[in-house]
């Protein structure tokens, strides 16, 4: 059986500068992977390339998702196929009501998969249930997408979308940054509720603390555009203790 996500020897350039220099990563269904690494090591770049953000030039390697060539797909096709990126910096979209956005997005994904669109009552029921589990008040959903949301509220809104779209691969880019301790626990509970044998998670973080809540099966250390070390969850503890210096030597 093929892996859910297979990144092979990926090389990526941004504005003539190579950022990822041959990165490989295999993620199977049911697994939770954590990616750690110093600022600027290319973690967000990897997540953007998987999600299909324009502006990155893939100069080598490949990404297979459920055995298909992901790089050939548009960002919306990837979303419909089950790729979800919780952004490190979610954008504000004034004038687009959160509810309208959620319904349009959910139905666009369903349509692309050949599924029937949700009726309004079914949709509302679903959103309310997910929002309640994440402590997101209804009032927030009436505002423009992320408009006037605090940093933590934006992150919770990302987890809300994850719960609503039920993707098969969730990439969480620094979900914990900007969250206070209670919010972190609530968001992590939301993520954990989505853990299943059919779904995989890639959790990008700087802090061991998040991994106490979302316990990973594998931890990878990225440095200078490569995965320089992989291990079990104990690797995160080791990093917390010793820092990245030892791995930066290896990458250089």
């Amino acid at each position, binding site marked *: 059986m093929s892996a859910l996500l297979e990144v092979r020897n990926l090389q990526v350039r941004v504005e003539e500068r190579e950022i990822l220099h041959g990165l490989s990563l295999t993620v199977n269904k049911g697994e939770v992977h954590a990616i750690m690494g110093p600022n600027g090591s290319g973690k967000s770049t990897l997540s953007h390339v998987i999600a299909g953000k324009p502006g990155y030039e893939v100069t080598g390697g490949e990404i297979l998702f459920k055995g298909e060539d992901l790089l050939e797909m548009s*960002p919306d096709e990837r*979303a419909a196929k089950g790729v979800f990126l919780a952004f490190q910096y979610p954008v504000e979209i004034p*004038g687009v009501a959160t509810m309208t956005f959620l319904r349009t*997005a959910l139905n666009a994904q369903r349509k692309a998969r050949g599924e029937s669109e949700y009726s309004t009552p079914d949709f509302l029921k679903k959103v309310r249930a997910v929002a309640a589990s994440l402590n997101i008040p209804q009032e927030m959903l009436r505002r423009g997408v992320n408009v006037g949301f605090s940093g933590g509220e934006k992150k919770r809104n990302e987890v809300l979308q994850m719960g609503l779209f039920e993707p098969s691969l969730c990439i969480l880019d620094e979900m914990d940054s900007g969250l206070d301790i209670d919010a972190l626990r609530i968001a992590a509970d939301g993520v954990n509720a989505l853990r299943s044998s059919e779904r995989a998670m890639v959790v990008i973080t700087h802090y061991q603390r998040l991994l106490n809540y979302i316990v990973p099966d594998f931890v990878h250390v990225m440095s200078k555009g490569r995965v320089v070390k992989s291990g079990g969850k104990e690797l995160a503890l080791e990093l917390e203790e010793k820092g990245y210096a030892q791995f930066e030597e290896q990458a250089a």
Partner: protein
Amino acid sequence: MNVALIKPTAAEVASDVFAAARDRLPGKGPVAEARRAAFDDFAKKGLPHRRVEEWKYTDLRVLLREVAALAAPPDAAALKRAEAALATLDVTGAHRLVLVDGVFAPSLSDTTLEAGVTTHRLADILNDAGNATRADLLRTNATADIMVALNAALATDGVVLGVADDAKLTKPLHIVHVATQSAASLATRSFLKLGKGSQATLVESFIAAGGAQTYQTHDAVVLWAGEGAHLDHIRLVEDARDAANISTAIVTLGTGTQYRAFNLTSGAAVSRYQAFVRFGGENAHADVNGVSLLNGRQHADNTLVLDHTVPHCTSNEVFRAVVDEAAHSVFQGRINVHPDAQKTDARMMTRALLLSDEAEADNKPELEIFADDVQCGHGATTGALDDSLLFYLRARGLPEKEAQALLIQAFVGEAMEAIADESLRDVAIATAERWLARRG
């Protein structure tokens, strides 16, 4: 010498148009004199061109070339085609007043209006020798604009509406202009006078019957709002894709009035809507908003002139243009704050969204302030859709066009908020949605 090679000038063509129409134009004596004077004024200057400051971005000598001959009065077949076109209108539940090819069509109009409304045909008033002031309807000192003069010279008909003091109309008054002929001019002028404390909504639609092409609409409306009156004014320009629409609104606002205007231009190859709004009494407020949705080679010009002549008035203008393909949007907003107009608060914000490399937008906000205790502000931006917003939406599963559509609706939405009547706002939103759906 080959005579056929000598091209007549635009002014000569217009002279022929006027001479040919003169016998059928309503009104003798002083009315005919007013027309003659207006026409002479026009003939001297001809169609405005880029060296006329107010028309700098909309050169009618290039865009229109010449004034087309007046359309013939509609016959039974034309009325039938107009009736079919009316069936496509989104606006329902209004008092409908229909002008076909520039002539009032009683058979297509609502004859019984609600209490408090009076209606006349402009042609009847101009022909009424017993009315001593009838020629005044073809004169204005609000503007010396040359296209308003042309409109006075050629106006064949229009509706003259009055709303009684304190009457609060329950239904909008809807003037519908239907063109059924091609390569012809439609010249109309209408009036609405709101009595003290009254409330009304005026909707103007410009549409074409199937097959009508390359016609020219030359329209003017003159609006007065009496003390404390509320006037909502919605214009929907949906002319044929190769037609021209040159329209003027002359608005005078009395003490304590509220005027909320919204213009939506999605039709016509060439259009200009110019509004001259004058505050004639204190404590009045005007919202003058507009949206243009353009593609192909469309050219649409919105020109607003607001005159704050008295103290304590407020105005707010929000304009949005969505410009696709090789279309061209023009916005000119001029706010004049006269020396006596202390405590004026005037704001204007215009934004253009360019959806293609060939799309063009000219924004020209102007403030002319002669009073010292005022608050005025204006801003103008032109740009493309934000890539990071587009990517966010696409990463959530929206295909490119749908993601763009959502952002475009948000972009125009702010200007549409000024439409108080919910069903009319829905008509504007539906028009935008149709426009977006046609983009694919």
